[in-house]
């Protein structure tokens, strides 16, 4: 009797023993998990994602946890939503339903900023290759530069699942840090004269039919050019078509609320589940975070530089700050551009133009990822 009590008690303490013997990586990751929860709750940094990610991270790192073992709850979510790529795609339907391409359609040329804002992806890819990352790993690190969480998750879950936790947390963390990362770069690269360029107000020149045809046209064009990215672009444009058509308000509402919220919860938990200490705490993870930061800086640099070229070519009519909005962090980077413009001239209203560039960044990031996947397929790597 006494013997069985002792053995049973020892089993209860096995977790603590594990934590202080071979389980130090889990201990560190528990601190990281609680750190993510702190950022989400106290600082309100991307709480919708960082809270479930942080909690998933805590769950998987508690000693002898079985949540990511076969049959475990997080493993189940991972298998049904991330391995199958369904979660990021469903989130894209919601993003499409929430996005207003109106400002972009008023001035379609501004879509070019959405291309320049993707340079960071490719420059970071080159750096990752130089640092010794394998080819597919380097692609997934570079994709952080898309500044687009679902795209990063979609690509990484397929081609470098061991980097999923690091890439996802880096992508969402840096997206939320856009208001801190971008302004210094914008100020360094532009002159006072350039920052105060006024671009006037956008006039209403887009019909409802154009708004309905736009997502269809983008789906067809991008699907023909880069079919590997069709699920991504198709889902975002489906959401937008539902919104603009106005005939399925219940589906639109469900996509941008119930479905997006539920999937965000499951996605966050499943990503947190990939952050098990022994797998996550590696030098490679630190490199992913460093390169991800660089990717977003390079996106901003290249976007603003294109803005400067455009400023010269247009005879000083285009404000180069708009280039910073060519990334996919919507609507954060558009707000940053507006704030920076008003910092130097209170009467300078760049928001609508910046929103156009920002939605262009959404299309550009998905397009860059789609083209990259198609090239990799052409090379026989995927």
């Amino acid at each position, binding site marked *: 009797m006494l013997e069985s009590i002792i053995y049973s008690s020892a089993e209860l303490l096995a977790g603590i023993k594990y934590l202080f013997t071979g389980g130090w990586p889990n201990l560190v990751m528990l601190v990281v998990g609680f750190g993510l929860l702190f950022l989400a709750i106290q600082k309100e940094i991307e709480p919708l994602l960082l809270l479930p990610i942080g909690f998933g991270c805590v769950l998987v790192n508690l000693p002898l946890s079985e949540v990511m073992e076969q049959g475990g709850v997080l493993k189940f979510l991972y298998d049904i939503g991330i391995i199958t790529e369904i979660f990021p795609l469903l989130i894209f339907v919601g993003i499409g339903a929430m996005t207003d391409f109106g400002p972009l359609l008023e001035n*379609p040329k501004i879509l070019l900023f959405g291309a320049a804002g993707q340079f960071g992806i490719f420059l970071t890819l080159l750096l990752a290759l130089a640092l010794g990352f394998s080819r597919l790993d380097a692609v997934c690190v570079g994709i952080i530069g898309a500044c687009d969480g679902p795209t990063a998750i979609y690509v990484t879950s397929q081609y470098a699942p061991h980097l999923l936790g690091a890439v996802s947390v880096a992508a969402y963390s840096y997206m939320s840090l856009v208001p801190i990362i971008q302004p210094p770069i914008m100020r360094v690269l532009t002159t006072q004269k350039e920052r105060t360029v006024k671009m006037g107000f956008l006039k209403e020149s887009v019909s409802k039919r154009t708004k309905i045809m736009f997502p269809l046209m983008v789906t067809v*064009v991008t699907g023909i050019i880069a079919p590997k990215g069709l699920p991504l672009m198709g889902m975002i444009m489906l959401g937008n078509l539902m919104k603009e058509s106005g005939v399925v308000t219940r589906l639109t509402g469900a996509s941008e609320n119930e479905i997006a919220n539920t999937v965000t919860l499951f996605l966050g938990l499943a990503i947190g589940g990939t952050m098990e200490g022994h797998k996550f705490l590696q030098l490679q993870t630190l490199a992913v975070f460093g390169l991800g930061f660089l990717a977003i800086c390079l996106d901003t640099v290249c976007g603003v530089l294109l803005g400067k070229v455009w400023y010269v070519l247009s005879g000083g009519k285009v404000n180069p700050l708009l280039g910073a909005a060519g990334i996919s962090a919507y609507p954060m980077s558009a707000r940053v551009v507006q704030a920076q413009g008003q910092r130097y001239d209170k009467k300078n209203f760049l928001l609508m133009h910046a929103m156009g560039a920002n939605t262009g960044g959404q*299309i*550009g990031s998905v397009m*860059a990822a789609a083209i990259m996947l198609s090239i990799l397929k052409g090379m026989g790597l995927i």
Partner: protein
Amino acid sequence: MDTLAFGLTLTVIGMGGTFVTLGIIIALTNLLKRIFPIPSDLKK
């Protein structure tokens, strides 16, 4: 193909392809705006 050639190929074709595709979308968007202009009564 060595690693450098791989990276440069992906960069050149990737960025080039992104710019060209977005250029096509810009052209087609302008076309859509011409085909489906705002009805004149709404303009007023």
